[in-house]
């Protein structure tokens, strides 16, 4: 008998799904099942799981609600949400409330799922950190002022107004810098020690998700908050699975809500800095070569456009930023 790679809990109201998952995972893992949230929470209370996989749609308590409870009861367990169809609000809740590790779409791929689960299980087992570090404190306990931010916040957004709003909300001495395009954003890393990135998914007509993915892969301790109006459920799935964003906010929200999200991000950043091994929990896959090339092209275009137009020093600063970020 081989040593099992972890102890996992599958939750779904459909017994056929549970059986199928069991058949798929039982070879490598110790699989437990629960047919509802209630039963799952009972099990979590009694036993320590490395990974919890839950269906989103269940009678009574939904999957995201269950995972939020699970995060509280067992912060060490990695959380995976199984989603059947796109329900954007539910997904946003699961991102912001329960900090899921991955979304997995039904139907799952039988060679992919065990791999993700085993990654998650390895993270859960390897991080070996004290439980207390992981317990998310109450949101309102966050000190909503500029002093809570020791490092620079990089805002990547078409509108500089966001910066002003945040200054008005959190104090004028808030260390915050605005980048209106990707080249500016890269350049900013050369000048500042960036702790938190607040980004729209589209800036200056180019997609920022590749940047966010690379950033998270390269600098897992940087905390990312996405603030956008152009998003569907698929985008959220990608941003979580590939960019491990910390919070997802649908534009527009009140400046106070934005400030609160940033404060939580700051707290997360402090956590990650204090315990660098924690960032393993937010590990993302390396970006595929095709996507990297496409990102490089858009970066070059952006840099060329803006350097020629306004800022000759941009190219220099940008290459410094690239060097610092990606060591190239």
């Amino acid at each position, binding site marked *: 008998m*081989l040593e099992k790679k972890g102890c996992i809990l599958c939750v779904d*109201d*459909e017994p*056929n*799904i549970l*059986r*199928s*998952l069991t*058949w*798929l995972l039982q*070879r490598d893992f110790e699989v437990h099942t629960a047919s509802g949230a209630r039963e799952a929470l009972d099990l979590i209370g009694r036993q320590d799981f490395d990974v919890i996989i839950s269906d989103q*749609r*269940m*009678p*009574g308590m*939904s999957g995201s609600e269950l995972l939020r409870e699970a995060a509280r009861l067992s912060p060490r367990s990695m959380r995976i949400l199984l989603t*059947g*169809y796109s329900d954007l609000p539910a997904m946003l809740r699961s991102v912001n409330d329960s900090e899921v590790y991955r979304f997995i779409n*039904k*139907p*799952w791929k*039988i060679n992919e799922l065990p791999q993700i689960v085993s990654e998650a299980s390895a993270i859960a087992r390897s991080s070996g950190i004290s439980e207390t570090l992981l317990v998310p404190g109450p949101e309102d306990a966050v000190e909503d002022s500029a002093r809570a931010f020791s490092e620079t916040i990089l805002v990547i957004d078409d509108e500089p107004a966001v910066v002003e709003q945040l200054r008005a909300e959190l104090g004028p001495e808030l260390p915050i810098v605005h980048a209106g395009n990707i080249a500016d954003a890269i350049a900013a890393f050369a000048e500042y020690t960036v702790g938190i990135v607040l980004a729209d998914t589209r800036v200056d007509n180019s997609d920022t998700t590749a940047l966010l993915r690379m950033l998270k892969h390269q600098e897992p301790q940087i905390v990312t908050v996405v603030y956008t109006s152009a998003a569907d459920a698929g985008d959220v799935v990608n941003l979580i699975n590939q960019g491990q964003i910390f919070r997802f906010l649908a534009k527009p929200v009140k400046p106070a809500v934005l400030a609160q999200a940033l404060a939580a991000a700051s707290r997360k950043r402090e956590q990650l800095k204090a315990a660098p091994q924690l960032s393993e929990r937010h590990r993302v896959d390396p970006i595929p070569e095709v996507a990297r090339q496409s990102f490089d092209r858009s970066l070059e275009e952006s840099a060329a456009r803006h350097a020629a137009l306004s800022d000759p020093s941009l190219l220099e600063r940008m290459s410094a930023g690239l060097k610092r970020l990606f060591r190239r």
Partner: protein
Amino acid sequence: LNTPAGDHADTLRAAGRHNRFRLVPYFTAASLAAFVLVAGALGYFQQQQDATFRALQAGQLALVRNAQNDFTTHQDEAARNDLLAVHEAGNVNLARIVANMSWERDFAPFVARAERLPIEHCRTLPDTVDATTGATRPGPEKKSCFAEIGRQLREFPEFTSIDARVFAAMAKSTVFKMKVFDLRGITVYSSEHAQMGEDKRSNGGWRGAALGGEAISELTFRDRFSAFEGIVENRDLISSYVPVRAADTGAIVGVFEVYTDVTPFLLHIRQATTDLRRIAADNQALIEAAARDTEHRLGEQTLRTLLFVMLALAFLFIVLFVIIRRAAGIMAQQERERDQAQQQLVQMEKSASLGQMVAGVAHQLNTPLAFSLANVQMAHQALENFRLPLRFAGIFARLVRSAKTDTVTLSVAPARKLIESAVDADFDPETPKAMLEDTLHGIAQMRELVDNLNEFTRIDRSRTTRFDIARCLSNVVYIARSVMPTGIHVVEDYAATPETSGNVSQLNQVFINLINNAAQAIDGPGTITIRTSFAEGRIRVDITDSGCGISPEHLPHIWDDYYTTKPPGQGTGLGLGIARAIVAEHGGEIAVATKTGPESGTTFSIYLPVTG
């Protein structure tokens, strides 16, 4: 699902059509009635005014006529009195002249002699009383007695000369007759001899003159009169009794009576009066003509005014009619546009619920699909893993077949390496079998779903069919459940009901709409109960939710088109209106009972008649 959206729009339209305000006919009728009323009132008041005017004019005319009559009559009377006065004076003078000239010489002795004739025997003779008038007249004996006295008087010797002288003096004058009376009242002389001897003691004129000493005159008309020149006819006469006084003593000694002819003067007076009357009549005619003219002109004026008012009213009516027609046209146009917009909204409503349903069905389908796919893939993999065991089995089978004896000695060394990678599970056919069984189960689920979908939409094949309400509802519930939040518990309680006929596709739309509404009314966990019953020839379907209920301010409006409490873009506000129209089309009714606050909830009840 594929019934044309226009159907429901038509149904909704038809529901609103019977109470539509028909502007043009109502306006026409009302304004025409008003105009007729105004015209009638105007005519009536005008008539009243005309009558008053005519009465006033007639009164004025009568007043003028009376005044003129009075004036003429007065004038005539005054002229006659003047005539009488003038002629009396003339007669008195004449009598005096005659008396002065001939009393002492001729009449005094004659009268003295006459006075000596006894008359008392005649006076004692009886009078006759006229039966009709009551007046007393001398009887025939009395008359003849006095006539006898007259005859004696004429035989007096002085008579002939006196008579001749009187005739000579009076011929060719206006004096027609002259009489002389003694103080006893006896006619002692008369130019008409036959009258001599007559007793005039009771005559007013004589008494006035003889006893009162005053001249008394009167105007009389005689058709036949014996005058100095003979008999005259149709004469107006003034007769004056004039007392004769003695020259020395002044005592009354006798009475003259003189008749003078005033016919020409009276003729003049009459002529004047006639002229006056004619002038008055002419004036009257003129005034009346003027009045008539005034009235006529006034009438014309009135007619013109009335005509103008009528024309103005007619013009006003035409102008208003044109405006109203235009407004009605615009309103009809707007209504058409609204209908069109409504049709689009009905279509939107349909596609919205369709989209929701598709999403639900997709999710419903996704679950069996997910595990079936995974199971088949895993079973496939397991089959791959069976390659090794089956190879061993094959080798073993060949070995057994080729073995000459029952015992074979086998070297397992080469196989040991192959077996190393295999796990126990690879030799267990039960797991892939269970996987495929589950897959069959999943396929059955998918098939059930497809069947339900087919059922849900099958009515497109024929619009009206016979159906069982419970089957229809369970089908709708199956579909609806897939889009419902997971915390909602659905209870189905179907009684035995007879089959009925109807458009199931439309009714499905009603039920799914009501069930979706029920689900949306529930926040968090809750229950939806779908119950059927049958009573009094009608099927009753109750869809009850444990939701928040409908607040009293919304309740009266829930059936109104476009009324929605959902945020803009999330509901057309047509759902319940369409539901009611569809139920009404099936000859049924839909009712709602709701409660807010604690133990809140809403029940929609649909009553459908059982039809062949």
